[in-house]
């Protein structure tokens, strides 16, 4: 405590010191919260023990015994464990969330820019899309997409036959699968070499532009490099892949790649819904950049597209990134609505079936929360890194 200056001032009691008071308040509050948490936890543990409800994580290694319709890693209902089911569900969630984020971002940026278009029709269409999608609950939209997908597709017997041996029906989309054969690593090596070449070209073009003021056709050359070199090696190595075509059985199509209608419905629903919000975020970001920036860029002779890419968007990104992070997190969390349309996501498998079969609500719910916490923190960490890079550097 600093001494009160001046001899005439009376010594103030510690109780009336605002700093001391705030510390006391916070300590009391913290203590109360801790007490509540402790009471709830010990009560729960006692109740579990008294009701003889199993606790602990022994179930993790027990055989699951239920089937899952989409598994990215090997899984069998008869031999795989609940722990394996956990990973299967987690991967399914990450798959739909990752693809959903990619699609939603693409659609969202296009629509957001379209809303600002000087073309009356384009701007109105984009506005109509945003407004109509935002007012409807997501669950309703998912059910709509699921039923729309299912109703629109033909029965197994009337499958649409696609080129290259694919099939489309209300059981899903079935495509031929490519299995790599020995010799395929040469193709991969060619791809890596082409990639290195592209990076080198990019560096050289930057130097070249600085020296001469001319831009090289980097994008075109990169595309040609990456596409042709591996393709040539692929042909030279004698096409080292085997194709597995889907086979039509009595009830189902097996072999090949199978894309479930549940997955498509969830992916489409999540992308369309989140894209509407991302579009607004993007629009807000672009509007936040003052008009003068665009005008100045054009005055310097940059074409409109280049001005947008090099001047406006980088500045808009500073405004866009933080709310965009929210939308990515929302999309990931919303993917748990999968349970309504039968897509085996993490919540459906783990917090649904596993919880029910084992009855260990506390452990399962705790793990579920930990998983979503990890995914959310990871996503926002990555975007915060990017945000730090594009943020205005103040000197």
């Amino acid at each position, binding site marked *: 405590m600093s001494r009160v200056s001046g001899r005439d001032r009376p010594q103030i009691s510690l109780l009336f010191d605002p700093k001391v008071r705030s510390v006391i308040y916070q300590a009391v509050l913290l203590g109360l919260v801790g007490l509540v*948490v402790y009471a*709830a*936890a010990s*009560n*729960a*543990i006692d*109740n*579990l023990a*008294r*009701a*003889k*409800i*199993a*606790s*602990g*994580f022994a179930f993790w290694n027990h055989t699951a*015994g*239920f*089937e*899952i*319709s989409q598994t990215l890693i090997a899984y069998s*209902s*008869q031999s795989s464990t609940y722990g394996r089911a956990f990973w299967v569900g987690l991967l399914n969630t990450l798959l739909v969330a990752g693809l959903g984020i990619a699609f939603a971002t693409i659609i969202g940026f296009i629509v957001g820019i379209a809303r600002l278009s000087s073309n009356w029709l384009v701007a109105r269409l984009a506005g109509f899309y945003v407004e109509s999608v935002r007012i409807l609950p997501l669950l309703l939209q998912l059910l709509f997409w699921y*039923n729309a997908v*299912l*109703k629109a597709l033909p*029965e197994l017997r009337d499958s649409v036959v696609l080129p290259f041996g694919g099939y489309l029906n*209300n*059981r899903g989309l079935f495509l031929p699968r490519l299995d790599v054969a020995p010799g395929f690593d040469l193709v991969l090596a060619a791809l890596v070499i082409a990639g290195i070449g592209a990076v080198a070209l990019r560096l050289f073009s930057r130097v070249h532009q600085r020296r001469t003021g001319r831009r090289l056709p980097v994008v075109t050359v990169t595309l040609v490099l990456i596409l042709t070199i591996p393709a040539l090696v692929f042909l030279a190595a004698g096409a080292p892949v085997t194709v597995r075509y889907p086979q039509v*059985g*009595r*009830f*189902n199509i*097996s072999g090949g790649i199978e894309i479930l*209608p*549940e997955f498509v419905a969830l992916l489409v629903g999540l992308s369309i819904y989140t894209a509407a919000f991302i579009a607004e975020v993007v629009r807000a970001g672009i509007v936040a950049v003052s008009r003068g920036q665009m005008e100045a860029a054009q005055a310097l002779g940059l074409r409109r597209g280049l001005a947008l890419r090099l001047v406006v968007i980088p500045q808009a990104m500073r405004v866009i990134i933080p709310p965009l992070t929210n939308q990515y997190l929302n999309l990931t969390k919303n993917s748990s609505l999968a*349970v*309504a*349309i*039968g897509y*085996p996501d993490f919540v*459906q498998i783990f917090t*649904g*079936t596993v*919880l*029910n*079969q*084992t*009855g*260990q*609500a*506390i*452990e399962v*719910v*705790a793990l579920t*929360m*930990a998983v979503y916490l990890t995914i959310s923190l990871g996503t926002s960490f990555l975007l915060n890194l990017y945000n730090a890079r594009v943020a205005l550097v103040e000197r």
Partner: protein
Amino acid sequence: MNRVLTLLGIAGAAILITSASIAQTLNTVKTRGSLSCGANGQLPGFGLPDAQGNWKGFDVDYCRALAAAVFDDPNKVKFVALTAKDRFTALQSGDVDVLVRNTTWTSSRDTQLGLNATGVNYFDGQGFMVRKALKVNSALELNDAAICVQQGTTTELNLGDYFRANRMRFKTVTFASVDEALAAYDSGRCDAYTTDASGLYGVRLKLAKPDDHIVLPEIISKEPLSPFVRHGDDQWFDIVKWAHFALVNAEELAISKANVDEQIKSINPEIKRLLGAEGNFGEQLGLTKDWVYRMVKHLGNYGEIFERNIGQGSPLKITRGLNSLWTKGGLQYGMPLR
């Protein structure tokens, strides 16, 4: 380690558990003035509110019978509609006093879930429903089929066992609720819908064209359906257990809703004991002497409850089969009251 992880979990989950009153369910029910009953809510014949919001069904009548035994009023029940996956958590946490929701009695549910099955009120088994147009006559022809199933059920597990035992492959599409699973089956997403046979008869009525579908003859599992209560309250366990036996005994002794007022004057000592004219069996349970009289007066005996909700008096028209009295070749057997 477990204790630490459990501590972490409480933030969200333990709120449920902490409100659980483990013992003294009867007192809680009496103080509250109504019974809280976990029921199905989507299954015709077993638990489904009608257009006016009145709950109807075989399981529902068991809850009403308990309310009649405690309060002499079958309407003092608050029904909580539960999905297959939520039902045990709701009971464990004390959200409902009793779970009567076509739930299969298995060892793991009896032990590790901290619950007690009180007695089989319906002997069931798992079956399949398919479209007639598929021209399938046996479940053994379902190799490679896509099957719609409700999550969190024993059906989900039996499927795996049955198909593996018969060296067949299958694909499941799993839904959280009956209605969603059924809608997917109806739209052609699956070749077959599977659940307990009793449920198949019930949900078939919900399909767009019920006559286009048939129930296959195979029963692939034992599904003894039972009410459930929490561990740790023997008095309440006894009440729910003996309510079922009393209803079966009433049928054995031909005591019905219509004649219960006559029967109470009977000289048959078994009837006198059951209806409370002699002895104090109901009081030993913590209820009144006339608890069985109350149940039968309001709801009828086991046979009446069966026929009214799922038997010949209902659209389901399920025959008694295994659920006939033991005297008529079935398995329903009321333990003696004495």
